């Protein structure tokens, strides 16, 4: 069995974002990068499936991006993936979700994976499109927003999370693709021995030009902070003073303090 996990490296969301010089995405200056939160659940589920099947499946982790994405791949390798594929693209942020999906599908089409895991969405772009489009291109059965996953004999049974906490139970046959939602499992922390082992695992580098044959269907015209609305009160400075100020405001504006 062959399994693919697609991961994106994204900035830490607690960072301050500033537009880049072209004004269409964020400037990378001073940003720290990490694995997209949703993709950690995808990696964990793939590793658990490999363990369930006695280690037989071969687990490939793929990421498209500049050389920094290798750091995120190393984490996935330390969590238990067998080999990495970096599709080298210093300008992946200028590709639309359709192009990103087409690149993954071009690679995956050659390798004939039985199962593909992606995140539900990326934290920086959040289109929730890449996974579904990969499945559409490859003509794989696909379901999204997975919070429960079981596999037996080529049949995948999953719980899809719907609004209000209701779940939809669906079944699909491999080859299949699932997009993983927060809370699907509890992603493991790589152990030191596994981090050392991961250093020896193969990472194949493929230039994006070899896999990209699609034009963008959507373009980002500009990237900017939200227009500030509301005009709530901002309390800064010394904690003691903030406590007094908040208490005063609550006494004045609400009826909940007795």
């Amino acid at each position, binding site marked *: 069995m062959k399994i693919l996990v697609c991961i994106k490296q994204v*900035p830490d*969301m*607690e960072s*301050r*974002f500033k537009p880049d010089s072209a004004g269409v*995405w964020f400037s990378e200056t001073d940003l720290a990068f990490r694995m997209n939160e949703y993709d950690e659940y995808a990696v964990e589920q793939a590793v658990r499936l490999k363990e369930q099947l006695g280690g037989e499946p071969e687990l490939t982790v793929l990421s498209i991006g500049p050389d920094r994405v290798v750091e995120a791949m190393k984490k996935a390798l330390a969590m238990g993936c067998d080999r990495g594929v970096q599709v080298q693209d210093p300008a992946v942020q200028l590709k639309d*979700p*359709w192009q990103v999906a087409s690149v993954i599908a071009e690679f995956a089409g050659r390798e004939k994976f039985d199962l593909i895991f992606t995140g*539900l969405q990326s934290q*920086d*772009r*959040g289109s*929730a*499109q890449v996974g*579904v*489009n990969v499945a559409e291109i490859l003509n794989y*059965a696909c379901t*999204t927003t997975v919070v429960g996953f079981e596999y037996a004999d080529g049949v995948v049974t999953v*719980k*899809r999370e*719907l*609004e209000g*906490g*209701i*779940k*939809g*139970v*669906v*079944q*699909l046959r491999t080859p299949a693709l699932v997009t993983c939602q*927060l*809370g699907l499992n*509890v992603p493991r922390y790589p152990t030191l021995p596994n981090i050392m082992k991961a250093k020896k695992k193969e990472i194949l580098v493929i230039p994006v030009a070899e896999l990209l044959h699609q034009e*963008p*269907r*959507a*373009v*980002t*015209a500009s990237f*900017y*902070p*939200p227009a500030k*609305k*509301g005009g*709530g*009160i*901002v*309390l*800064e400075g010394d*904690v003691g003073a*903030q406590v007094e100020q*908040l*208490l005063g*405001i*609550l006494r004045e504006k*609400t*009826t*909940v*303090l*007795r």
Partner: protein
Amino acid sequence: MKALLVGECKDGKFLESSYELFGFAAQLGAETAMVLVGPEGELPLYGGVVYLADTGKYGEYNPDLHKKLVLAAVAREKPDYVVFLHTSFGWDLAPRIGAALKVAQISEIVAVVEGGFELPACNAKMRRTVRPQGAIAVLTLQGGAFPVLKPGGSPQMHPLDAEGAAGVTFLGYEPAEEKGVDLAKAEVIVSAGRGIGKMDNVPVIAALAKAMGGELGASRPVVDGGWIAHGHQVGTTGQTVSPKLYIACGISGAIQHLAGMKKSGFIVAINKDKDAPIGEVADVLVVADVMQFVPAFTAKLAQ
């Protein structure tokens, strides 16, 4: 300009949120038609054309069949935009329609702006304007971003049919977990987010909730991590609340959290990040380390 609106039914019920699609179409100034997979007794209050595929035959959401049904309506209407809400239905189906039509799909639109559509980026801390390259596009709208608009009237129905194999089999629904605490009744809710740092810090937030005579709430990562039970989760996949006072401790303000609490009477957020999106709905934003501020505030209340 014409917009084909994809209405949503779940468990045989037309979802009221689908009326936001009309609100969006009105802002675009587009003519409308709607496509729906639902029971005949659940039609929207709308005098236009509704392409209806019967749930009795097509069942609950099935991506392969629903894709064919929507495409059949597209072939008849030839719309400029095919519009969904950005829900577990919309984000599952919209990319498939975009791929089949070979056109752009643009996700989670929050506004119509000059030069395109405005979308959130970077966990809602930033925005971007995106425009489709071609004339036609498939769109999803962020829930609550556009006003509910009930056009009124009764629709001209066109039955819709499609055939073919389905790659995904729907087995049934599983109900939401028991609520545990009914947050809807609380006058004060003090919620813990990932910013509290660790599970050991939960009692500090719970102590403030108790001192205020309120209930403890939580954001999703705190629940997913097992720090607080799911019954306390606020948001689209938890409970929707509107207490007199909501205090968000170390919560960034993701749209799925805001959707569950933004109607609260008075909102206080404690966050070390002045730019956190929770600031957009907060009446008071306390820029502080939550683990310093909250114990100090609770102690002061006790005096």
